[in-house]
């Protein structure tokens, strides 16, 4: 149990060392951002006119968090389905690249899968969920 735990911590530490660049980017961003936030702060919501959202000279009418067109929601649903399928392609391609099985064997399965993807696209197309006008 203990060795498992130690091994876990060591691997976490190693991956942290490996990700030094990410940490560097994060720290740099934090530093820059905090510094200039402190330097450039010109008042919060106490100035009513200045802090009101931009609306071409009007008084803002209503809130901005209103409802939106259903098209965007539908598109996000279509995207979900497609993205899951595309993401499924990647590990399989990785397996192919590691030479577990020859490409031609993979291709027989994949051709079927890609045809399925294309059929899904065709279905959404014919059903009209891709139309915007």
């Amino acid at each position, binding site marked *: 149990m203990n060795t498992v735990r130690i091994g876990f911590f060591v691997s976490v530490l190693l991956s942290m060392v*490996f990700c*030094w*660049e*990410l940490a560097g*980017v994060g720290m740099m*961003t*934090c530093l*820059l*951002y905090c*510094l*200039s*936030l402190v*330097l*450039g*702060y*010109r008042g*919060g*919501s106490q*100035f*009513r006119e*200045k*802090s009101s*959202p*931009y*609306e071409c000279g009007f008084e*803002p009418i209503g*809130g*901005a*968090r*209103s409802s*939106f*067109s259903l098209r*965007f929601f539908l*598109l*996000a649903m*279509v*995207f979900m389905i*497609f*993205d899951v399928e*595309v*993401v499924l*392609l*990647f590990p399989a*391609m*990785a397996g*192919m*690249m590691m030479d577990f099985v*020859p*490409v*031609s064997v*993979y*291709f027989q399965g994949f*051709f079927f899968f*890609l045809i399925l*993807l*294309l059929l899904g*696209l065709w279905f959404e*197309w014919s059903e009209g969920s*891709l139309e*915007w006008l």
Partner: protein
Amino acid sequence: MGLGQPIADAFKLASKGWIIPFRSNVMLYLFGPFISFFISFSMWYLLPFESQVASFKWAVIWFLCLSSVNVYGVIVSGWASNSKYSMLGTMRGVAQVISYEISMGLLMLFPAVLGMSFEVYEIFSSQKWVWIAFVSYVALVSWSITMLAEVQRPPFDLAEGESELVSGYHVEYGGMGFTLLFLAEYGCLLLVGFMLVGLFFGALEEFSVVFFGLMAAWCSVWLRASVPRCRYDQLMMLSWKSLCPLGLGSVVLAMIMKISAGLG
């Protein structure tokens, strides 16, 4: 002698004032530019430069993941600033980026399958004899269009169309928030240029990656000057009805090429 101009510009931007918009979600409002900047500069880890500690084995997947997550910067910064313009810009931008992500994932498999690796350096060096741009011109053009739309550059910058939405999702930002959002966009643009040169033109030495990558980025600025902005429904149709089937086709093409070359 305009060399000092960018540096002076950076100082000017950093010293500009910023405000907290009325009824905005303050924490998210402040966090949005940080997300964008952090993600766009974490993506640079995948380039095979000498200064990197290690070559990144799953670089292509890293690119795919981070450019998918990049959309959260747009969502957070646009939604949290409680402005109608930024909300509209966010919705457009998100719909655009997620639709082009499908074709990006598929088209990225084309050089990956031909190079038989997800490691960027291996894909670069697999093109010693012939560039992938010559293998399939269609894949190159679709990839360039996809990338232009993915980083929301003109002619696909519908999310920040100046004529109808004032500046899209970053209209309420000033000072460093604005700077970080813009640096994130330009960082992505440069990285995309380097990726284009590496994946399709097989630039191998650091100098040629940087030089031709900058040229690709320069071309996108050139496009901004010469091409008008397209209509939103055209943008969506281009993604779903042209690039998506083309991407599927190019994956099949790459696998057929591998088999017929007798490498499988």
